[in-house]
Every structure is written in structure tokens, then in C-alpha cells.
């Protein structure tokens, strides 16, 4: 019989892993299609970093859950209602480089602060994974932030397009900070930390870059898509999973 704490720990790991994996899958759509060779390689690198992060957290979840679970099971044998990623990362980029960079920047700033806290986790596996991930995320934030500034403070067209990306993605940022009983239990055990506590810092971080980029921050309106914690997603996730899971679903005996 699994303890409530272990159950919560599995959920907690899957949420982080799912978010990184789905984000990586979106970014990897650029592989071979980047605006220039160097950026193509950079984005593939970022996607690989994120896949690496998800693998770490999936493996830990599998270890706690036992019962023959593996990282591949979580990635390839679950349906969309079982995925716990935030809605922001599953949104399609529609071949808009600025949109991809804005998404990487907004989510990256959040991940940076989250991993910074998790490095102090009483769970040694979690703190170890956080310490490894934060170096990668630090680079993602710098890379994406640099592009947000250059596109925002670039030509009239690049400014308008990156402003549109910000307007479109901003409502999704509320969900980043959502927490539930899983978090409460882990927080009380010193394994996780209250995300609300770094919300002001996150806001300051992104506003600083938007000021440099001459972008105006949209007002917080009431429209705030949500559902990731419960596995309720936008219409886009199913298509993404269909492509990502095609091979292991069609050929269940396939091995790496």
C-alpha cells in the first residue's frame, strides 16, 4: 500500500516531467526548420535539455511507483487526460520563432525559480535533479530573453509580432503558479516549496526584459486557461501526443 506522501511525490514528478517533455516536443518541431543553422542547433539543444529533465523526473516517479513502470511508459503509454503539463507549453508555435522564444522565456523564468527552490528540497533525488536542471534553464532564459529583447526592440514588424506572442501567451502564465493538495503535502514535508512565494520575483524578472524589449505587458484579465493539474487540456495536446506516441503505440514491441 502506497503512502499518501509517495503518491503525492509521483504526481509532483510527473507534473514537472510532463511539462518539460511536451515543451521539448513542441520545440523539437523546429529541428531542421530553424530560421538559421545556428538557431536550429540551439533549439534542438534546448529540446534535448528539456527531454533530459523529464527523463530524470520520470525515472524517479517510476522508481517510487514500482510495478514495472518505466520512463517510457509515462511518455508513450498515457493518454492526454493523464498528462499533467501546463496548457502554455502545448500551444502550437505555428512556425513563429518569436512565439517559441516568448514561451521558452516565460516558462523558463518560472522553471528557474522553481528549481532554485527545489535545490533545497529534503528529498535528495529532487534536489539533485534541480541542481542539474537549473544550469540548463539559466541558459534557456538567457537565450530566449536575448531574442525577446532583440525582436521587441527590432523592426516594426518584429516588435508587433513578439508583442502579439506576449499578448497571446500572457493569460497562460497564471496557471504556472497553480498548486493543490499534492503541493501542500510536499511543502509541509520540506520536499517542495510554495510557488506563490516567488511570484513577485518572477513578475519582476519578466518585466525587466519586457522593458528592455519595449514591450507592454498585457493587463491581467479574467481569461486564464487552466486544467493541467487535473489533466484537462486544450485541443492541441491530443494531436501532439498522436505524433509523439505513434511508433510505440503502433509497434508495441519496438525497442530503442
Amino acid at each position: 500500500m502506497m503512502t499518501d506522501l509517495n503518491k503525492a511525490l509521483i504526481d509532483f514528478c510527473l507534473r514537472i516531467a510532463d511539462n518539460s517533455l511536451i515543451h521539448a516536443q513542441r520545440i523539437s518541431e523546429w529541428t531542421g526548420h530553424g530560421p538559421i543553422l545556428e538557431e536550429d542547433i540551439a533549439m534542438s539543444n534546448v529540446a534535448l535539455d528539456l527531454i533530459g529533465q523529464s527523463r530524470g523526473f520520470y525515472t524517479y516517479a517510476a522508481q517510487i511507483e514500482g510495478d514495472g513502470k518505466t520512463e517510457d511508459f509515462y511518455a508513450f503509454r498515457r493518454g492526454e487526460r493523464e498528462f499533467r503539463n501546463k496548457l502554455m507549453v502545448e500551444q502550437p508555435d505555428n512556425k513563429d520563432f518569436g512565439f517559441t522564444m516568448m514561451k521558452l522565456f516565460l516558462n523558463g523564468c518560472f522553471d528557474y525559480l522553481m528549481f532554485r527552490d527545489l535545490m533545497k528540497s529534503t528529498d535528495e533525488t529532487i534536489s539533485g535533479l534541480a541542481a542539474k536542471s537549473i544550469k540548463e534553464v539559466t541558459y534557456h532564459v538567457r537565450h530566449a530573453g536575448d531574442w525577446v529583447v532583440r525582436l521587441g526592440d527590432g523592426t516594426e514588424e518584429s516588435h508587433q509580432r513578439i508583442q502579439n506572442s506576449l499578448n497571446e501567451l500572457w493569460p497562460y502564465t497564471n496557471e504556472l503558479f497553480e498548486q493543490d493538495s499534492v503541493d501542500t503535502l510536499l511543502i509541509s514535508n520540506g520536499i517542495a516549496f510554495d510557488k506563490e512565494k516567488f511570484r513577485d520575483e518572477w513578475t519582476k524578472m519578466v518585466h525587466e526584459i519586457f522593458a528592455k524589449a519595449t514591450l507592454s505587458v498585457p493587463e491581467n484579465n479574467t481569461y486564464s486557461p487552466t486544467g493541467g493539474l487535473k489533466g484537462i487540456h486544450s485541443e492541441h495536446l491530443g494531436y501532439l501526443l498522436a505524433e509523439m506516441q505513434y511508433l510505440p503505440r503502433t509497434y508495441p514491441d519496438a525497442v530503442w
Partner: protein
Amino acid sequence: MESNHQWPTWEVFTQKKQGAPHEHAGSVHAPDGEIALLNARDVYSRRQEGVNIWVVPSDAIIASSPEDAGAFFDPANDKMYRSPNFFKTADGLKQI
């Protein structure tokens, strides 16, 4: 989309370990130095090739031309005494 104008190129130098010289690794396209540095990191150090990177605008490099080769390099080829070939070295010393 029109893409017949290219960003300038930057020469990339990577240092394999602390204290070692920076060696030319290749070049990247980038609109400015900061992006050139990030591109260089992604293209030339993704397999842990280095601990430090320099990027230099390609047009800042002054190169000798092939026609200069005779005057520049040939006078050195009969001056063995400029190489430390005649020193006795300790056994087991692999390089000077």
C-alpha cells in the same frame, strides 16, 4: 520570406581547458556579439569541447595572403637552431 541578406560572420575560438590557448573552432552567423557568443556555445561546445569561448567579428581578422607565404615563412626553414632540438631532456618527458 526574403533571406538574401545574411547576418555578419564571427570567428569562434574555444579553450579546451583552463590555461590552454584558445583555438579556432569555426565561424557562426549572428546579428551581434552576444548572440554570436550563444550561437558559438550551441554549435561548438555542445559536446563539452571547451571551458571558454571568444567570438571575433570575421572582418576584424587581418590575414596574410597566400602570395605572402614565400616571404613570410620560407626564411625560417633553414634555421634549425630556432627549435629546441639540441637540448638534452629528461627521460619520460613527452613534450617541451
